[in-house]
């Protein structure tokens, strides 16, 4: 095949420029965004999204970015990544062409808190990379932002300055604003150094007071699938035949109250039920909500577990001793006004290594931003959980 002549090449290049330069109409962009929003599980909609993405990435201009950011308000996590990739590509292309995104349009979007977290965080990302000076001026305004990720920088700045000044009031402000565990710990440690009392269970909304029962069996990890009586009904006055852990010992088990004194709300079943292996335990509590509203149950555990909320299974995970952290699992729930019942099943396996002793979980109720939602009848935090000492 002969090489194209100069003239042909020039025509092709001009055509390419025209194609790139022609921005999509608002209607066309909307239709392409709809293709991105339509992606579903197991790759559904990927081919159509790829075609739309290519068009947006090649043709959209900085003027189209606010519409793309706004579309993230309607996007699930998959579609949000499609849009995120397109916006960043448009931003790169515009930057390379000498017409970068303007700080004004990004700031306008970012500071409008009615937009969802995904679009606002992307606007923040773009602002940080392309207009760092503008970003810096905005940072302090995000201290109480509904998007917790936007709080990180102002909380860090405030904690640092308040620590240097030994300013308790500002440290308290930083603590109240902080949502991430590392920043909460940092502010709390400084306050305690200055002699202040810090109530972390209340800050996070950990549920501290439980009724627990066990042990049931978990030989060969069979307890995870087994249905023991607490899963059928919660009767705090009932007694059951549990697992015989010592020959000749009475295996009758009953619910008993247990209040954790851990400041991160860790409910250690080894304490009320004994240091046992190949066992299953249950913990239940009632959370009284002042109103009906959406909320999140956030859970951490390194044991196999199942969770029920108001009698309905929420999630279950058959994994042992791989790790535990605050907010390891997040589940949206609808609180009803008044009492709401939470039931946890917690299985301990047969492993004998020192790092497999834990038989515990931590659970809190908060809103989608991680702000604690406190029960209307929440008891006072146990004094031992206020000290920061294990």
């Amino acid at each position, binding site marked *: 095949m002969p090489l194209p002549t100069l003239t042909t090449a020039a025509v092709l290049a001009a055509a390419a420029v025209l194609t790139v330069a022609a921005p999509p109409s608002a209607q066309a962009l909307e239709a392409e965004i709809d293709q991105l929003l339509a992606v579903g599980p*197991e790759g559904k909609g990927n081919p159509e999204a*790829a075609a739309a993405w290519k068009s947006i990435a090649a043709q959209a201009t900085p003027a189209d970015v606010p519409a793309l950011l706004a579309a993230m308000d309607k996007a699930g996590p998959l579609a949000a*990544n499609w849009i995120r990739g397109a916006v960043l590509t448009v931003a790169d292309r515009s930057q390379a062409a000498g017409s970068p995104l303007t700080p004004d349009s990004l700031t306008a979007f970012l500071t409008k808190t009615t937009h969802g977290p995904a679009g606002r965080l992307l606007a923040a990302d773009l602002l940080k990379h392309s207009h760092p000076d503008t970003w810096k001026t905005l940072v302090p305004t995000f201290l109480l932002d509904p998007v917790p*990720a936007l709080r*990180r920088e102002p909380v860090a700045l405030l904690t640092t300055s308040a620590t240097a000044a030994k300013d308790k009031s500002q440290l308290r402000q930083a603590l109240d604003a902080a949502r991430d565990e590392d920043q909460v710990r940092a502010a709390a440690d400084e306050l305690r150094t200055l002699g202040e009392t810090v109530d972390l269970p209340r800050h996070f909304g950990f549920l501290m007071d439980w009724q627990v029962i066990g042990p049931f069996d978990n030989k060969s990890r069979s307890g995870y699938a087994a249905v023991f009586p607490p899963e059928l009904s919660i009767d705090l006055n009932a007694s059951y035949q549990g697992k015989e852990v010592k020959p000749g010992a009475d295996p009758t088990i009953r619910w008993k109250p247990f209040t954790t004194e851990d400041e991160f709300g860790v409910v250690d079943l080894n304490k009320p039920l004994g240091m046992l292996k190949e066992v299953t335990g249950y913990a239940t509590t009632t959370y009284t909500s002042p109103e009906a509203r959406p909320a999140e149950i956030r859970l951490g555990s390194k044991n196999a577990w199942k969770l029920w909320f108001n009698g309905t299974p929420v999630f279950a995970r058959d994994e042992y001793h791989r790790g535990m952290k605050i907010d390891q699992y997040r589940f949206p729930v609808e609180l009803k006004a008044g009492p709401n019942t939470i039931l946890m099943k917690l299985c301990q396996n047969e492993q004998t290594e020192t790092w497999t002793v834990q038989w515990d979980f931590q659970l809190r109720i908060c809103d989608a931003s991680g702000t604690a939602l406190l029960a209307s009848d929440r008891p006072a935090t146990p004094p031992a959980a206020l000290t920061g000492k294990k």
Partner: protein
Amino acid sequence: MKTQAIRRRLPSAAAAILTFSGATAYADWLQFRGPDASGRGTGQAPAALAPSDIVWKADLPGRGLSSPLIAGNKVFLTAASGPDQETLHVLCFDNTSGKTLWERRFQATGRTMCHEKTNVAAPTPASDGTRLFALFSSNDCFCLDFDGNLLWLRSFTLDYPNASNSLGMASSPILADGVLITQIENDGESFTAGIDPATGQNLWKLDRPKNANWTSPTAWKDPGSGRLNVLVTAHEGVLALDPRTGKEQWTLPKPGTTIPSGGIGENHFAVPRPGKGLAVWTLTGGTSPPQLAWESPQINSDTASPVIQGSRVYAINGAGVLSCAELTTGDRPWKLRLEGPFSGSPVMSGNTLFAVSERGLLQAVDTTSAEGAISGKLDLAETILCTPSLSGTSIYVRSDSHLWRIGR
């Protein structure tokens, strides 16, 4: 005509590499441990390492222990950043200068919790020579072309909500017979899947035992049929799959470890065994299971995967001792203490074995020496947990902060 003549003299894998790259300046390294996930390069990187061998060093925006891929004049890498490593980076560098050509950032949709020693950018991406498939510990997978255009994405945790590992996932995908093989094996929703590289959709999905598994699949070409088998190592043994269908070809019942992957040779497969050293199998082809050549508790792979070169297998144990063994007999002509510990696996460039310690000491070993001999060292002075990649006369390694090209 010239190219055809060259190809006739090259092994088929090398010819495939030339075809993929469309360029002869660099030999491509398109997945974890390179061609067939073997750990063997086709060029000769400098055996006597020196600081002057550093061609370039690029800054990285996030952590990772994935290996770089090299395709033509582009180098690809993944990284993760943010308080919970929730920002996923796919990066492309110019192979000549180390300059960043493009970067794409996404948000993790799956769980990002990991053991502190690993991180969300643990799996190495794979490429078919025109597309990049970047998988992360969060089970997010992104397919991009070499210009950074997004072609598809998947979230295996959104699709299968119990598919995750609270210590982190690490298995690297591979391409085999035009199918992207992803080994998402864990204590919960455990599976290995064949993904259509064009759409990201499942071609097949095979339920696997509920056990955490950080090994990566390996490919072996059956000389009889010319077809590829995908070898999946797990605690339950080794499973050979037809990559196009996911159908079992044969199994090996002896348990394999779940951290180091198997080492593949022309006709042998070296499988690290939990507490029992190394087992070497002779691959027979067809649906007949391989025959055990030998098993030795004295040759161990701790975290680093063994590598086969020619008639020998090399393995590094937890104390940093490199053992050399004959593939057919298990005889051990030598062993050599390296400066460990090692998280990354050794790779072979010609007869030189390269391994980088967790402390960032890149070490070159002359495997032709009667006792094995260290031929060079280069202190990169950063924590390095990745497996090196090779391309032509260069070695590529990364830390949490930097990517190096070393060689020529």
